Structures are given as C-alpha cells and as structure tokens.
C-alpha cells in the first residue's frame, strides 16, 4: 500500500519535472526562437520546405489554416488506406514475412480514419491482421502526423488567443512538431526501449518447441480458456499450444511503442497492446510509456504560459487539471486494489486486488497509473484489459473520456479545456451581471455559441450512436458480457471513439460493418468538428479589440476562477453523462456488492 502510493507519487513527480523543460523548449520551437538544436534541424526543415514548396513566411488566417490541415489529413488518409489495401500483394512480400492476407475494405476505412484522427481504436488483432508494411506506413506514419496535426492546431489556437490574426503556417507547424519534438524523442526512446526488451526486427515469427512438450488432453489450461468453453464443436486440428509448439510473432515493435505513447496515439502492434510483454516488458518500460504519454499534453499548458506571457494563467489551468488527474487516479486504484468481492467469496485472496486481465509485473499501482494516463491524455493504449476492471474502477476511464480535457491529447486537449473555460467565464459573467472577459477580450454571443456547439458534439456523437445501436438492435451480438456491463461495452466504444481515445472494453466484437462504418464517422466528426469550431473561436477572439484590465475585471488566473472552472466541468460535463453512467457502471457496481452475477443467454 505504502509502496504503491510512493510509486504513483514518483511517476507524477517525474512527469512534472519533464513538463517544465519540454514546455520551455516547445515554446521556443513554436515562437521561432533559437534553440540548442538549430544547427541540426534548420537544414532538415529548409530541405523539407523546399521539396514541398512551402513558403514558410506565409501566415494563414483561421480558414486558411483549417483548409491546409484538412487537405493534408485527407492526403495522408488516402496513403494509409492504400497501404492497407495492398499489404498482401506479392510486391511487398519482404515486409510481410508472416503472410498476412487482404484486408476487408470496411475495416481498412475504419482503421485509416482511426489512425489519422489520433484515435487508434482497433477493430482487429494487430499480430494477425497487419503486415510489417502496414504497421510502419499505416500506423507509425499517422502516429507522428496525427499527433503533430493536433499539436499544430493547439499552437495555432494559442496564437489566436494571443491576438494574432494570422494563426501561423500549418505546414511549418506540422514540420517543426515532427522534426524538432517527436522524431528526436521517439528515436532516442525507441532505441532505449529495445534495450529494455522490446523487439525491433524485420524477421517473421519465431517457431519454438516448448519445454513442457505436448499437453495432456483435457489439461487444466484448456479448462481455463473461455474460447474452449464457448466453441460449440471441438476443433478439427489440434492447436499449436496443445502440441507443445509456439509461434512467437514479433516485428518492428520498438519504433511503434515510443511514438504510440509520445503522440498519445495508442494503437498496439499486438492485440493485447501494452499488456503484451513485447510492447511493455517491465515496470520500468511501463513508467517510460506513462511519462511519454504525459510529456507533450502537460508541456502544452506550460508552453501556453510562455506564448501568451501569462504564466499565472497557465498554473491555474495546470492546478485544475492536476486535481482532476489525481482524483481519477485515486478512484481507479482504490477500486481495483479492493478486488472483486464475488471472487473473494469463493476463496480467492484479495491481497493482489482484481487481477483478471492484469499482468503480474505491473500490479495495481502501475496498472492504475497507466489506465488513468491513457484515458486522460487520450492515448488509448492499455496495459490491462479495461473490460475486466471493477465497475468502480472503470469510472476513471469513462470520466476522463467524457470530459476529454484532463490534459487531453496533443493540442486538442487544451482546445477542449477552453470550451469549459469560455462557458465558465460566460456563466460567472451572467451571475455578476457584466460582459464576460477572457484574456483581455470580450466573450460575446458568437464565442459562446461556438463553444457550446463544440461541447455538444461530444455527447451527441456518443448518445446518438448508442441510441441507434440499441434502438435498431444493430449487431447486439457483438456484446460479450451480460447485464449492465454489456451496456457499458457499447458506451465505452462510442465514448472512446468520439474522444479520439482508442482504448476499449475489448470484449465487444466490433469488427462488423456497423461498428466499422459508425466508428469511422464518429472518429472523424469527433476530431475535426471541435478543432474547426474552436479555431474559428480563436480567429474571432484575435480580431477583437483588447479591453484594458480594470479593477472590475474578473480575473481568470486565481483560485476563485479555478473553483469556477472545476464547478463548470462538474456541472456541465458530469451531469450530461451521469444518466448513462447510472445504467452502466453504477448498476454493475451495485449488483457486484449485492453479490449478483449475470448469466449470458443460452449458457
């Protein structure tokens, strides 16, 4: 218990220590101030601008910035989709040693949309679907560009808040985010991760003959497997496992693992994602991956303080976010550490907590740290199976994804936070009967409309598609757990996709045409609508006259406003989502403590 708290405190402290220098460096990168690495990066960037015919001095107003962003993302989407569709061709056999077959176009549509939007929801098992070429050009590539797109939009938004009508040049921001922030860090950390045991090879699967040799039929291990129980007919050919054989899939995992977390992407090389020992072999790699996830989203807040020259404002935001972050970590840890009372009652020790779907090397502290980080920073990788979390513990990922602003993803997380800031300022302005002001600009009808629309998109997408799924009974067979938990599976899916998170209650068999199509639409609308609306808001604020600060100005950088912001998030955010929480995790929790279980129909 004490060592668990110590582990969590150390990881949070390390994250804080990274935030300050990285935030300072990123501010220099996006304010075009000299940094120590200019000698290396200037020639590279200039070459990129020359090849791409980018005029780096050309500023873009908000519509131009959005247009460049959307067109570039479209071109990248086409490249990713094309990669998936040709992965099985003999021409690319060198990067397909395990002979992966042709991809279903619906799945390819969903996955291209999922990766370009930084969601990384995965409707497939990586090791059984994607060739190495797809993993590299279809996953690693958008892991950089989607993260850099979000970061660029966040930077542009901050420039607008600072009063600049030109939000910058999208191509320059995209390039600098990749060459000066993401590539160097991913490269160094990626190589280090190989040293900690993550594979980096182009060789195919390794065949092995196990020490034990063939299993005795009807062994206890066979009983332990749910698939073996579920399959109605015995398999015609015995599995490799039962014959004492193992085929160990591997590949260029390390380069994916570092940018997967640094870019808060979350798409796994393997189906089990960061629970897989090849993606996350030890508690140390677990800590590294958590720190990578938090590095840029937290640094953006610090960068904002420098770019706007309003450090106190940045610390106020940071304080609010850190409070939410710590509270959600505690909710997760306490619930998971308490374990599953239904198992305690049949003689299972509660000392380790709820171990179903978790890995021994991580234990509860590292698992809770990861689950909280991956949903707060909208990464979506998992080091445990969230579907097997206790209902109380699952409140943490749900809350992080509903609010979608507890640091949040690259750039977009801050943009989402700003929705609540605008609404909070507006409401307090109404209460005291004064025109609300924010960062020296008046907040008027136009801004409040944009912020409200951006906020409403999120529940609209989640509830809209949930309602369609249940009302029209679309692919209800995809749900794997009976009772309220089954409802939670569908809720988790659309919440995760709308929040561009990508983690899952993975029992849901979502590789169906309905989920592929509705999911593709959800990730795209969830990503771009709020970005477009909020960049419009930034453009509108930039064009306004600055109001001089007087004694009557309501400050937004003190504790009172921090309280207002927390209240706004709780009232608007939490109340919107409370009714569905009652139908899912809360009902599930009440059943669990009452000792009630649920039986699947027909079993």
């Amino acid at each position: 218990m004490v060592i668990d708290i110590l582990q969590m405190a150390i990881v949070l402290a390390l994250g804080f220590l990274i935030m300050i220098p990285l935030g300072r460096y990123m501010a220099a990168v996006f304010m075009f101030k000299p940094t120590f690495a200019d000698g290396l990066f200037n020639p590279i960037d200039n070459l990129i601008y020359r090849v791409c015919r980018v005029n780096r001095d050309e500023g873009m107003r908000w519509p131009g910035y959005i247009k460049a962003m959307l067109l570039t993302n479209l071109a990248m989407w086409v490249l990713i989709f094309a990669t998936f569709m040709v992965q099985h061709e003999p021409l690319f056999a060198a990067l397909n040693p395990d002979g992966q077959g042709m991809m279903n176009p619906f799945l390819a549509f969903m996955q291209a949309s999922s990766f370009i939007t930084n969601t990384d929801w995965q409707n497939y098992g990586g090791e059984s679907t994607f060739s190495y070429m797809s993993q590299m050009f279809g996953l690693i590539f958008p892991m950089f560009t989607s993260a850099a797109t979000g970061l660029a939009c966040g930077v542009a938004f901050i420039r607008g808040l600072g009063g600049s009508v030109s939000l910058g040049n999208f191509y320059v921001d995209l390039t600098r985010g990749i060459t000066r922030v993401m590539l160097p860090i991913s490269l160094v950390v990626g190589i280090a991760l190989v040293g900690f045991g993550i594979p980096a090879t182009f060789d195919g699967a390794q065949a092995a003959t196990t020490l034990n040799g063939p299993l005795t039929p009807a062994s206890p291990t066979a009983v332990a497997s749910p698939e073996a129980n579920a399959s109605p007919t015995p398999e015609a050919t015995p599995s490799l496992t039962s014959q004492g054989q193992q085929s160990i899939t591997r590949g260029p995992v390390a380069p994916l693992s570092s940018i997967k977390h640094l870019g808060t992407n979350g798409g796994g090389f393997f189906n089990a994602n960061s629970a897989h020992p090849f993606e996350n072999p030890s508690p140390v790699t677990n800590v590294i991956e958590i720190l990578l996830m938090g590095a840029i989203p937290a640094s953006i807040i610090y960068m904002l303080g420098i770019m706007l020259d309003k450090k106190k404002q940045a610390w106020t935001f940071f304080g609010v976010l850190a409070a939410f972050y710590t509270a959600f970590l505690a909710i997760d840890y306490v619930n998971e550490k308490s374990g599953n009372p239904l198992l305690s009652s049949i003689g299972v020790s509660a000392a380790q907590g709820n171990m179903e779907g978790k890995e021994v090397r991580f234990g509860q502290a590292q698992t809770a740290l990861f689950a909280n980080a991956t949903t707060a920073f909208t990464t979506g990788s998992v080091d445990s199976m969230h579907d097997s979390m206790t209902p109380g513990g699952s409140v943490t990922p749900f809350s992080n994804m509903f609010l979608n602003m507890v640091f949040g993803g690259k750039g977009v997380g801050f943009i989402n936070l700003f929705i609540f800031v605008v609404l909070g300022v507006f409401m307090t302005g109404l209460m005291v009967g004064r025109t609300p002001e924010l960062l020296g600009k008046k907040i008027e009808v136009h801004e409040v409309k944009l912020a409200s629309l951006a906020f409403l998109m999120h529940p609209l997408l989640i509830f809209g598609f949930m309602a369609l799924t249940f009302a029209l009974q679309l692919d209800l067979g995809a749900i794997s757990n009976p009772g309220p938990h089954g409802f939670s599976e569908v809720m988790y899916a659309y919440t995760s996709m709308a929040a561009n998170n990508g983690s899952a209650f993975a029992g849901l068999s979502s590789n169906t045409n309905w989920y592929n199509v509705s999911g593709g639409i959800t990730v795209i609308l969830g990503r771009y609508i709020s970005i477009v609306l909020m960049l419009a808001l930034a453009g509108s604020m930039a064009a306004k006259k600055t109001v001089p600060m007087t004694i009557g100005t309501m400050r937004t950088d003190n504790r009172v406003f921090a309280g207002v912001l927390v209240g706004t998030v709780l009232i608007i955010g939490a109340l919107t989502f409370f009714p569905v929480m009652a139908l899912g995790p809360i009902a599930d929790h009440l059943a669990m403590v009452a000792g009630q279980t649920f039986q699947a129909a027909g079993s």
Partner: protein
Amino acid sequence: MPAWIRISILLFLLCGGVYPALVVGAGQLLFHDKAQGSIIYDKDGNAIGSALIAQAFDKDQYFHPRPSAAGADGYDATSSGGSNLAPTNQKLIDQVKANADAAKQDDPALGEVPADMVTNSGSGLDPDISPENALAQVPRVAKARGMTEQQLTGFVNQHVIGRDLGIFGEPRINVLRLNLDLDAAKPMQK
C-alpha cells in the same frame, strides 16, 4: 503538385520508412538478442521460447503459468489478449472456481488462493507469476521431482525478481526461466 500532397508523401516516407528502419537498425546493432525477441535456445540451438512470453505447462514437475485466454488452448503468441470477462459475469466466477479447485487439489493445505493463480492475464502471455503463486505450487512440483518442499521453496525464493529499481511494479518469478533452471539443477529421471 500542391504542398498538402507533397508534404504528406514526404512525411509518409520519413516517418513510416526512415524512422522505423533507424530504430530497428540501431536496436539490432546494440541489443541484438533483445531486438529479436529475447529468444531462449537449448544446447542444440533449437528455440524453446521467449523469456518474455508465457508458454503452456501442464506437467506436474513444472511450475505452471497464469491461466491464458490467448487462442483456443491459451498461450497462443499469434493471438494475444485477455478474457475480457466482466467482474459480474457468472462465466468468470465459474472459471475461477474451477481453477481454484484444481489448485487446492495440488495443495490441500492451501488457504486463500493467490489471485494471479486463477485469473487470466491481460495479454494471455504473462511470463510471470507472483511468489505466492509459486509457493502454492511447491508441494506438487516437489512431489513430482522427489525433492523436499523445503529445498524447492529455497530454490523458488532465489528466483524472485524484485521490484524494478526497488520501487516499481511487483516482485515476480519468470516461469520459463524457473523451470529451465529447475531442469538443470534437478533433472527428471527418464
């Protein structure tokens, strides 16, 4: 060709091609064995498995890994994943009960069953078990190998991997390494 197409193609090649090739190249040079997946070979050079990946054991003389939901019979390293069973799913309770009953058959003196012994891991390939899990298997393994429980307990305790840097994660035992060392130290009579 406009800038938005040019920059997409250029980044496609840089981030999708050059970057992973650099990491794989450097990783292969600096940490070849780990880059290849920490594969363990026998003295004839045949692959036995990976130190990081659980494999199936069912013989009494070996320590058993955690239950696995990867693939039809578990431990399928081409199909990683957990059971995804909810805490309130009756199927989970039934499975855990069956596993707990089997554990108690091996060690009738066993009180509360260690949780990791009877629950599916997240990946289905968890290479480790908790020290409590290993100790609960000592009576069965000692009997099969003709060792005293005291001897074997000492052997198990030597194989405990502590928390990383003394702080992070949990103490654990790598099942494949433990079983390999056990075979070397106390070979089974053929």
